[in-house]
């Protein structure tokens, strides 16, 4: 249909376009022809005049020549006559006879020459008459000579008749010549004018012809081109018109979309091949079936209810399009764009509906993907900036707005240098160079400038952006504001420095405290002992040197002084031992527990008990030998001390593995310890009993616990009041057991 309309439209356009041109062309041509005719006429007339003048001139020359000839002939005849008259000889008459013979034709020629110019001029007639008269006078004189002799003839000559006639002739010839020459001058002027006119006319007509030809050529050529175009389009329209129905079908089948024509009654009139692929239905079979039925069956009820309203609107003459999603009979879920185009009859009546259904799933999917990606980019807390290779900003997300202070609309199109500090412009160029070589730059810590000129610490990841064929078309920069991190780092650094200072200070304080403690223990061991020695020494000296002079009471007082001194000495020794446990650093070594227990028992000295050592030789612990021995000795002496008065002391020592440790047990059948006191006894100076019953400093068990702790172990007690106690000491097991060590003393 569309094809058919092309031809008349073009033709009409052509007509419209050429109408005025043709009129103009006609007028131009006509005026040109008229002008040429006029020029030709003028030229012709001028040429004719020229030719006439030429002839007239010729004639004038003939007249003149004839006149000269006539005059010469007459003069010859006169010469002959005179010779004859002088000599009387006939041979002298020869010129006369010849002249007389020539005069007739000469007159005749003159007449002819003059005849063309109308009536013979008077002077010519006079010349003719004079000629005749002269001839007659000559004839008469000759005749007289012959008849009457010379004298008669001479008398005639002497009359002057002949001379007069000759003069008349000469005058007439001259007059005629004058007339002719005047005519000739006129004609010459006339000829010159005619020549000019002819030249002008011919030049004009030549130019006019050229111009006319040019105009005609231009007009004709443009007209021809237009005609050619029109003809071409006419030809192609004709070819298109010749597209067969089969080709149209192929065309419609090749469209990658559903294409169908549906009657207003909702029945398919035609459907393309795509129906077979999408809906698994033969396009031939679909013809005549209801669209509602086909779509419900082949796509789904929901799909039909989505598109049905649009179809109805199309049936009412509206051109509509909508989107719908459905799973087609081929199992593919498609998002489609449905176009319903009413087919209107010339009277506006809807004849049917053309349905075009495009699969836009991929497009929709990529749009969604793009939208999602866009959302990710926009919502990223990192500034994402895209710049072209010439450094112009092309993309700018919200985080970039927030971090750099430039709004998206402001930033796009501006050079990237708006956010690069001046001193880093060169670096920026170098980065671009590296990117061109395909490099990617990760976590570049650098500085950027905000809109307000303040600096911001950024960590940038810069990567090239490629197009489909792998050319770099831009650079993406993902930047993280690390100002806070930098600040935190600085704070952490400062905190660390402060901490270090504090640790140093604390260490110094500890060192000082330690030094103080050392000074204290030195002082205790030296200064406290000195007065003690004095007390004991002088009490002893007094008893020894002056005992005999003292009574019993005085001596018992002095004994008390000595005892007090002894107890205080013990106390100082224990305290010093305890404090040394805190000060001295141990280097634990593998020690045989059995060996240590035996050595400890030998330290006990004269006591009324013998602990039973049942520790096997397989137990080896990590410990400091003297400290371990001291601890075990303390436990043993403790067990020996708190015996029940009426019960024989029985002390047993054994060991058992306990996880990564080994536990040494010291069991007695002594007085036992009430549960509420079981923790307290391990503290310094905690004593449960009076000095008189169970003497002691109250430091022994504290030393045991402190020593155990210092050796990465522990100590404790299980006891029942009146039923004995089981003290334990736990120490790390030595790995591997040092079997070759036979003596722990040798270790030290």
């Amino acid at each position, binding site marked *: 249909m569309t094809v058919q309309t092309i031809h008349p439209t073009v033709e009409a356009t052509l007509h419209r376009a050429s109408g005025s041109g043709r009129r103009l062309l006609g007028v131009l041509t006509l005026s040109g022809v008229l002008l040429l005719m006029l020029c030709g006429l003028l030229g012709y007339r001028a040429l004719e005049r020229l030719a006439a003048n030429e002839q007239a001139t010729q004639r004038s020359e003939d007249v003149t020549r004839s006149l000269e000839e006539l005059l010469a002939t007459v003069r010859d005849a006169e010469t002959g006559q005179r010779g004859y008259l002088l000599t009387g000889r006939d041979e002298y008459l020869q010129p006369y006879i010849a002249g007389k013979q020539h005069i007739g034709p000469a007159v005749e020629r003159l007449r002819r020459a003059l005849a063309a110019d109308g009536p013979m001029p008077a002077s010519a007639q006079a010349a003719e008459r004079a000629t005749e008269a002269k001839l007659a006078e000559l004839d008469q004189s000759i005749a007289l000579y012959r008849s009457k002799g010379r004298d008669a003839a001479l008398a005639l000559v002497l009359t002057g008749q002949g001379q007069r006639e000759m003069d008349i002739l000469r005058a007439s010839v001259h007059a005629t010549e004058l007339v002719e020459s005047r005519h000739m001058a006129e004609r010459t002027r006339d000829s010159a004018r005619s020549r000019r006119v002819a030249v002008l006319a011919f030049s004009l007509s030549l130019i006019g012809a050229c111009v006319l030809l040019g105009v005609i050529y231009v007009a004709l050529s443009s007209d021809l081109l237009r005609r050619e175009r029109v003809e071409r389009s006419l030809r192609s329209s004709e070819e298109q018109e010749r597209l067969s129905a089969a080709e149209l079908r192929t065309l419609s089948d090749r469209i990658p979309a559903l294409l169908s024509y549906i009657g207003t009654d909702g029945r398919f009139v035609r459907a393309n091949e795509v129906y077979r692929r999408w809906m698994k239905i033969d396009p031939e079979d679909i013809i005549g079936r209801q669209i509602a039925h086909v779509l419900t069956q082949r796509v789904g009820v929901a799909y039909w209810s989505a598109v049905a309203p649009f179809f109805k609107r199309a049936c009412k003459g509206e051109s509509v399009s909508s989107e719908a999603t459905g799973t087609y009979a081929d199992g593919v879920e498609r998002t489609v764009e449905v176009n319903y185009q009413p087919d209107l009859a010339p009277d506006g009546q809807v004849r049917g509906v053309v349905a075009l259904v495009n699969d836009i799933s991929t497009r929709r999917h990529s749009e969604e993907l793009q939208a999602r990606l866009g959302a990710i980019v926009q919502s990223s807390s990192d500034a994402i900036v895209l710049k072209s290779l010439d450094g112009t900003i092309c993309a700018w997300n919200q985080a970039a707005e927030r971090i750099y202070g430039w709004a998206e609309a402001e930033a796009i199109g501006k050079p990237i240098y708006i956010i690069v500090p001046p001193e880093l412009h060169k670096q920026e160029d170098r980065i671009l160079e590296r990117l061109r070589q395909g490099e990617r730059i990760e976590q570049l810590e650098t500085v950027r400038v905000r809109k307000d000129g303040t600096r911001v610490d950024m960590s940038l990841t810069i990567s090239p952006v490629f197009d489909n064929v792998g050319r770099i078309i831009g650079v993406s920069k993902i930047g993280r504001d690390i100002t806070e991190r930098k600040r935190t780092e600085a704070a952490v650094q400062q905190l660390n420095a402060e901490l270090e200072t504090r640790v140093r200070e604390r260490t110094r304080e500890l060192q000082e405290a330690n030094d103080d403690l050392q000074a204290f223990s030195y002082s205790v*061991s*030296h200064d406290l002992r*000195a007065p003690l*020695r*004095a007390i*004991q*020494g002088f009490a*002893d*000296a007094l008893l020894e040197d002056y005992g005999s002079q003292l009574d019993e009471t005085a001596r018992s007082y002095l004994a008390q002084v000595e005892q007090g001194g002894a107890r205080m000495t013990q106390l100082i020794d224990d305290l010093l031992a305890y404090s040394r446990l805190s000060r001295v650093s141990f280097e634990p070594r593998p020690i045989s527990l059995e060996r240590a227990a035996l050595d400890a028992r030998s330290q006990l000295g004269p006591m009324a008990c013998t602990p039973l050592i049942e520790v096997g030789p397989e137990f080896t612990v990590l410990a400091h030998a003297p400290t371990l021995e001291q601890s075990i000795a303390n436990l043993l002496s403790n067990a020996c001390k708190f015996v029940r008065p009426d019960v024989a002391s029985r002390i047993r020592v054994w060991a058992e593995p306990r996880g990564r440790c080994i536990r040494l047990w010291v069991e007695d059948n002594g007085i036992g310890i009430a549960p509420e006191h079981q923790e307290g006894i391990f503290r310094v100076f905690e004593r449960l009993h009076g000095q008189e019953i169970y003497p002691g400093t109250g430091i022994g068990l504290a030393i045991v616990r402190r020593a155990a702790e210092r050796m990465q172990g522990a100590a404790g007690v299980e006891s029942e009041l009146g039923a004995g106690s089981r003290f334990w000491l736990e120490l790390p097991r030595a790995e591997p057991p040092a079997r070759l060590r036979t003596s722990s003393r040798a270790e030290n």
Partner: protein
Amino acid sequence: MADPILLVEDDNADSMLIIRAFRKAKISNPVERVDHGDAAVDYLNGSREFNDRVEYPLPVLILLDLKLPRRSGFEVLAWIRNHPGQIRRIPVVVLTSSAHNEDINRAYDLGANSYLVKPGNPEILMDIVQSLDSYWLTLNSGPELQDLLP
């Protein structure tokens, strides 16, 4: 008269008890006591009030306390051992209340001949004095000390 024993001890009580023990042990050597480090150096040097070698002859044994006013026992010991003359040969027994290993080691490092801890018990002091007598003053062969009289 036997050569003296130089007791360098600042504590009067200790001095009295030590001198008593010497007396009770019937040791013939006289005990010359000075109560601070500088005095010990002066005595050994024969300077100041000790410039009479007849009255204050060089000791055959020095009993040196460590904790002393002015010059400490360690300094006195170091001075003795670094002395260019014969004084450096004199046996020095440290008799002090400190039982610290650090002190013991340091004393030996500086050239002490023996190290004794002052006992609390007077009987042990008696034993110590008797042992000193029998070992250092009787059994031991002391160095030759040529007294240079001023």
